[in-house]
C-alpha cells in the first residue's frame, strides 16, 4: 500500500527514513476491507429481516423491530429476527472454524465438514434423538459437542499412527474416512425409524429456518468460548503455517498449538451444528475469500472470516427464502450450491498443501 505512507509534509522533520512496518503497511487496506465487510453484513442482515415468503412494508418491519406485533406481517418479520441472529452467529462460527482448521491441518481444503467434526456431531445428535428421546437445546448442544470432539480425537489419533505423526495429508485422509463411516452409521440409524426420520432429515439438511431465541440462547456461551479460544490461537496458526519444525524452532509447542486450536474449532462447529444441523462449504469458502482480502495473517484472517461467514450464511438464507417462493430452501442447500463451484475453483487454482 504505497498510498498509505504519510506525505512528506505530515511526517515530522526528524523522523527516521521510512522503514518497512508490518503493522502499518497493510493497515489501510485491512481497515478498508473491514469497513466493506461490516457494511455488507449490515446490508445482509437488513435483507434477512425485510425479505421472505411474505412481502412486508416499512410499517411491519418497524412494528416488529420495536416489539409491537399486531398483524400477520408484523409476526412474519418478528420471526425473522431470531433467524437472522442465528444465521449471523452460525455463519461467523463456521467461517472462523474453517479458517482455524485450514491453519491447523495446513490443508486448503479443510473445512468443518472434513476432519469428521460435523459428521461426528450429526451422528451424536441423531443417536440422541433416536435412542434417548433428546429434545432440549442443551441436550442437542452437549451431544453435538461430544460427537464433534470424539470424532476430532479419533481423526487425530488415526492420523498420528505410524511414523511422522499427524501430517496435514494424513489428517485429511483420516477425516474423510471417519466422515464416510459416521455418515453411513447415521443413515443406518435413521432408516428403520420412520417416526423420527422426518425431524432428523430436515435437521440434517442444515439451515436456520424456524429458529427461536430459546434455541439460540444456550449455544451463545459455547460460541463465545469457541471464538475466544480460536482468536487466541491466531499467532500459533501463523507459526504452524511455516511448518512444524520452523514453528518448534520459534519456540512454539506444536502439539499444544494444534490441540488448542482444534478445541476452538470443535466448540464452534459442534455448537453450530447442534442448532442448525451440518452446514457445509461456509467454512471452506469464506477463509479463502478473506485471504484474498487480508492475506495470510490469522490475526486478521479469523475476524474477517467471522464477518464473511455471517454475510454468506445470511445471504444464503435470504436466497433460499426467495428462490423457492412461497416455500423455502434451507440455507445448507444454498451454501452447497455456492460452495461446490468455489471448491472446484480452489482445487484447480491452488497447489494442494500450499498453505
Amino acid at each position: 500500500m504505497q498510498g498509505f505512507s504519510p506525505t512528506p509534509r505530515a511526517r515530522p522533520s526528524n523522523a527516521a527514513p521510512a522503514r518497512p512496518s508490518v503493522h502499518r503497511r497493510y493497515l489501510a487496506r485491512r481497515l478498508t476491507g473491514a469497513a466493506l465487510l461490516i457494511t455488507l453484513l449490515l446490508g445482509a442482515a437488513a435483507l434477512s429481516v425485510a425479505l421472505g415468503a411474505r412481502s412486508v412494508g416499512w410499517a411491519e418491519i418497524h412494528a416488529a423491530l420495536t416489539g409491537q406485533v399486531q398483524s400477520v406481517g408484523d409476526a412474519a418479520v418478528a420471526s425473522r429476527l431470531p433467524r437472522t441472529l442465528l444465521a449471523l452467529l452460525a455463519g461467523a462460527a463456521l467461517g472462523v472454524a474453517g479458517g482455524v482448521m485450514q491453519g491447523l491441518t495446513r490443508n486448503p481444503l479443510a473445512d468443518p465438514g472434513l476432519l469428521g467434526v460435523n459428521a461426528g456431531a450429526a451422528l451424536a445428535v441423531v443417536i440422541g434423538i433416536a435412542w434417548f428421546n433428546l429434545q432440549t437445546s442443551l441436550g442437542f448442544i452437549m451431544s453435538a459437542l461430544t460427537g464433534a470432539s470424539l470424532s476430532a480425537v479419533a481423526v487425530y489419533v488415526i492420523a498420528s499412527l505410524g511414523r511422522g505423526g499427524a501430517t496435514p495429508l494424513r489428517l485429511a485422509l483420516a477425516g474423510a474416512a471417519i466422515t464416510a463411516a459416521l455418515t453411513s452409521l447415521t443413515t443406518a440409524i435413521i432408516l428403520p425409524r420412520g417416526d423420527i426420520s422426518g425431524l432428523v432429515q430436515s435437521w440434517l439438511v442444515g439451515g436456520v429456518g424456524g429458529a427461536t431465541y430459546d434455541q439460540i440462547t444456550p449455544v451463545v456461551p459455547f460460541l463465545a468460548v469457541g471464538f475466544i479460544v480460536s482468536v487466541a490461537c491466531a499467532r500459533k496458526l501463523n507459526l504452524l503455517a511455516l511448518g512444524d519444525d520452523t514453528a518448534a524452532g520459534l519456540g512454539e509447542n506444536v502439539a499444544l498449538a494444534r490441540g488448542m486450536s482444534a478445541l476452538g474449532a470443535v466448540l464452534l462447529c459442534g455448537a453450530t451444528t447442534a442448532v442448525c444441523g451440518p452446514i457445509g462449504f461456509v467454512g471452506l469458502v469464506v477463509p479463502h475469500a478473506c485471504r484474498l482480502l487480508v492475506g495470510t495473517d490469522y490475526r486478521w484472517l479469523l475476524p474477517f472470516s467471522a464477518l464473511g461467514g455471517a454475510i454468506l450464511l445470511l445471504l444464503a438464507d435470504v436466497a433460499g427464502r426467495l428462490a423457492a417462493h412461497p416455500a423455502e430452501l434451507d440455507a445448507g442447500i444454498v451454501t452447497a450450491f455456492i460452495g461446490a463451484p468455489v471448491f472446484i475453483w480452489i482445487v484447480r487454482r491452488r497447489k494442494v498443501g500450499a498453505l
Partner: protein
Amino acid sequence: MNASSLQAEALTAGYGERRVLDNASVDIAPGQLTAIVGANACGKSTLLRVLSRLIAPASGRVLLDGSAIDGMAARKLARRIGFLPQSPMAPEGISVLELVSRGRHPHQGLFRRWSAADEAAVADALAATGLLALAERAVDELSGGQRQRVWIAMALAQQTNVLLLDEPTTFLDINHQIEVLDLLTELNHTRGTTVVMVLHELNLAARYADTLIAMAGGRVYAAGTPETVLTEATVREVFGLESRVIEDPVTGKPMMIPLGRHGGVGSATRSS
C-alpha cells in the same frame, strides 16, 4: 552480541525402534562456523534436531553455554537457538516482510505487542540479507536463492546466538549455494553467531567451516579443522569412497576429488 557454545554429551536418539544417533558427542566452541558432513542416514540431521531440541534424546544431554537445554522454556530457548529446517514452508502469498517478522515470535509475550525492538530487528535482518528492496514481494515469487535468504533473515530476526541450519544449500544452483554460504560467513564474522549446519557438499564444507564434524553410523567419526578431518582415510571410512585430497588452489583448504571405480578416468577420455 555474545557468542554461545554448544555441547552434546553422549547423545543417543532415534525414531521408534530405529536408533539413529549412537553415543554422539560434539563440542562446538563459541563463534565457530561448524559443518556436519556424512553419508545419507548417518544421523547428521538427527544430531542437529537434538541440538535444537526438536527431538529429545533417549540418553545424553545438550548444554548451551554450560547449562542443559532440556528444562528450558520453549520461548526462552528460541531466543538463544535458532533452527532452520531443510524445507520450511511459506504460506501462499505471504510477503517477505511478514515472513521475516514471524521470527520475532519468541520475543513477544501473550500481551507484549509489536515493539520498536521488533521493528529494528526485522529491518536489520532484511538489511543484512540484502532483502530491503524485496520486502514487499511475495515469497513464492522469489528465486530459490532469494527464498533461502528470506528464511535466513527470519532466523536473524530471531536474534539468537546460535543458528542451526539443516542443509541450507540443498536444491540451490551453485551460485546460490555460494551466496548463502557467503552470507552465513558474514553473519558469523560480524555478529559472532555460532553457526552449525548440515552440508552435503564436502568441498564447500571444508572451504567455509572452521570446524568439520564427520559422522558415520550415528557416531562422530572425526571432528576438527578441515585439514585434519577431510582426509582420504575419512572419505573412505565415512562415504566408502576412494578419493584424492589436494590443496584447494584458491583457499589452501583441503579439496576432495572422488576417484570412483574407474579411477576418475571415465567418459571424458573414452568419448574423445
